[in-house]
């Protein structure tokens, strides 16, 4: 590129300044506020707030829910992307569209749908009550809600990746006499592992932060069915700002860890943003 003219340089400086300013005002400043508020009444109170039963049980529940939702998503994501990229079947386009529903529907609506299905007055409510199975206002409901909102994450990472890779290697393995299960472990999984990990990280981060759908299904029973995001809201509504921001700071830490892992994965694997461009290096 030639040396830019003065006006070009002004435009460039202006755009960069605008971007930096928006990042500062909308992203960095609120982040600083979270920690400022959390420590507003001293580090001792912050530690106390974090070690309170309410926050600790919320943290535990949040992690358990993520630990259940993410593996479910991995299983579903692999199954769906395998089916979509390796087979032709009637209704394939519909399935691809359905996977995206959670991204289009408000999480609150998702929560309400589950209440309609599993709630006391819902379709399966009486049967569930008769068998003493609790889904709504209990952990299974929270896991269901979280699985719903994180449904697309793994599949949407894997589908374009597996499409770009093609099925040549798997076909080669079949002709060489390999068993389907053996092909999955020896060929498919090693090839998709980075994309799979990447999708799982996104799903985990979303499960930890999910509020809307979980809020509808949880019932807000402190110490039993509140996750960290719910705890933030409840403490805030009770004017317990230190506790609210202490819980919020934990979520922020989770976000920072996610971002770091995501960044490391991207540079280690080269899956983004170059996905699919590496296939014909010959």
């Amino acid at each position: 590129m030639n040396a830019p003219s003065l006006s070009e340089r002004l435009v460039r400086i202006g755009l960069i300044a605008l971007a930096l300013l928006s990042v500062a005002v909308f992203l960095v400043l609120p982040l600083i506020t979270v920690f400022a508020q959390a420590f507003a009444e001293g580090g001792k109170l912050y530690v106390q707030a974090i070690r309170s039963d309410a926050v600790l049980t919320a943290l535990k529940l949040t992690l358990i829910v993520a630990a259940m939702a993410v593996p479910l998503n991995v299983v579903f994501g692999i199954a769906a992307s395998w089916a979509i990229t390796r087979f032709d079947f009637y209704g394939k386009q519909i399935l691809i569209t359905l996977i995206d529903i959670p991204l289009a529907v408000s999480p609150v609506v998702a929560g309400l749908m589950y209440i309609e299905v599993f709630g006391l007055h819902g379709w399966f409510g009486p049967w569930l009550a008769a068998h003493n199975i609790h889904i709504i206002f209990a952990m299974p409901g929270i896991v269901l809600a979280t699985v719903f909102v994180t449904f697309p994450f793994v599949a949407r990472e894997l589908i374009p990746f597996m499409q770009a890779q093609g099925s040549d290697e798997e076909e080669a393995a079949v002709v060489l006499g390999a068993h389907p299960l053996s092909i999955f472990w020896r060929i498919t999984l090693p090839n998709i592992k980075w994309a799979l990990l990447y999708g799982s990280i996104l799903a985990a981060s979303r499960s930890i932060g999910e509020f809307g759908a979980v809020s509808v299904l949880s019932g807000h029973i402190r110490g039993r069915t509140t996750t960290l995001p719910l705890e933030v809201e409840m403490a805030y509504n009770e004017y317990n700002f230190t506790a609210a921001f202490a819980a919020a700071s934990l979520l922020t830490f989770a976000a920072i860890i996610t971002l770091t892992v995501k960044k490391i994965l991207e540079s280690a694997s080269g899956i983004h943003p170059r996905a699919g461009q590496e296939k014909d290096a010959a």
Partner: protein
Amino acid sequence: MSIQIENIRKNYGAFEALKGISLTIESGELIALLGPSGCGKTTLLRSIAGLESPDDGHILLHGEESTRTNAARRGIGFVFQHYALFRHMTIFENVAFGLRVQPRAERLGRKGIHDRVSELLRLVQLESYARMYPEQLSGGQRQRVALARALAVRPKVLLLDEPFSALDAKVRKDLRTWLRRVHDELHVTTILVTHDQEEALEVADRVVILNAGRMEQVGTPEEIYNHPASPFVYNFLGNVNLFHGRLLADLAPAGSAGQPQAAPSIGFVRPHEFEIARTAVVGSQALPATVSRLNAAGPLVRLDLTVADAAQPVVVEISHARLRELSLREGDQVYLTPTEIRVFSNTAADDLVDFGSHI
């Protein structure tokens, strides 16, 4: 192992990829399936491998009904156009894969696998690459690894799907000579799919020419080249001049090619099947033409000649000696006489989509 293909049909939606193919391949033969893209040759090959299931018809491997046999149990080696090497495995592990996934009872021990892989890497001259990964190899080397991997399990049939088409011309030529040598050494029944007529005619014992899901001709390379059964085959083999209408009548007067001239016909003449002269002999069938381009780079001299009423220039090849005799230059007037002409009635040529530009 012999292969019998009986009336195989395959449709993809409304598209008929194979319209009833029957073919018998003898044990130890090297067959080339030759045709333009979309003619069904790859579908046929994948059906034999079990990677596609035909809608109708039968495939018998060594006399045994195998149409629905799982691809993993057909004892077939398959080489893909884009190599399909396992990118996360070393060259050694790629070749060893088929040996490692064998049923426990038949599986070789650690030493056995090592010896077999080393033997194959020696065969494909890549012993020193055992620890490298596919992305560190050139295209030609990768395809040799793919071949070693396919041969590792001692397949009874070797299927190759346009194995050299992604390689550059020089490597392609070397590899096909080498493939023929490997075949002669191992005597494994081999089917090679290609769209390159030179490759097919050079390597194969027999050539099967496919067009739009049907077989046009089956024969030895000599038969195919010297006696093309249809205008399609003539045209597809390339390097041919096509005449029709009045020009054909001038070149091939009634009776000369054993074909009635009443029906509209087309005639083919290969570039080297012309006599060329400075002056017209009285009473002969010579066609006046002008030299529009002369290219003497190569074993033969290529002349592009403009003929009145012909849409395409006529291409003629003469020896360098003949060029010196005639002392031709661009712009000179000459007279053309075909020494060989093959005439087909136009109805037989209906499936010829594009008449020109096949030189």
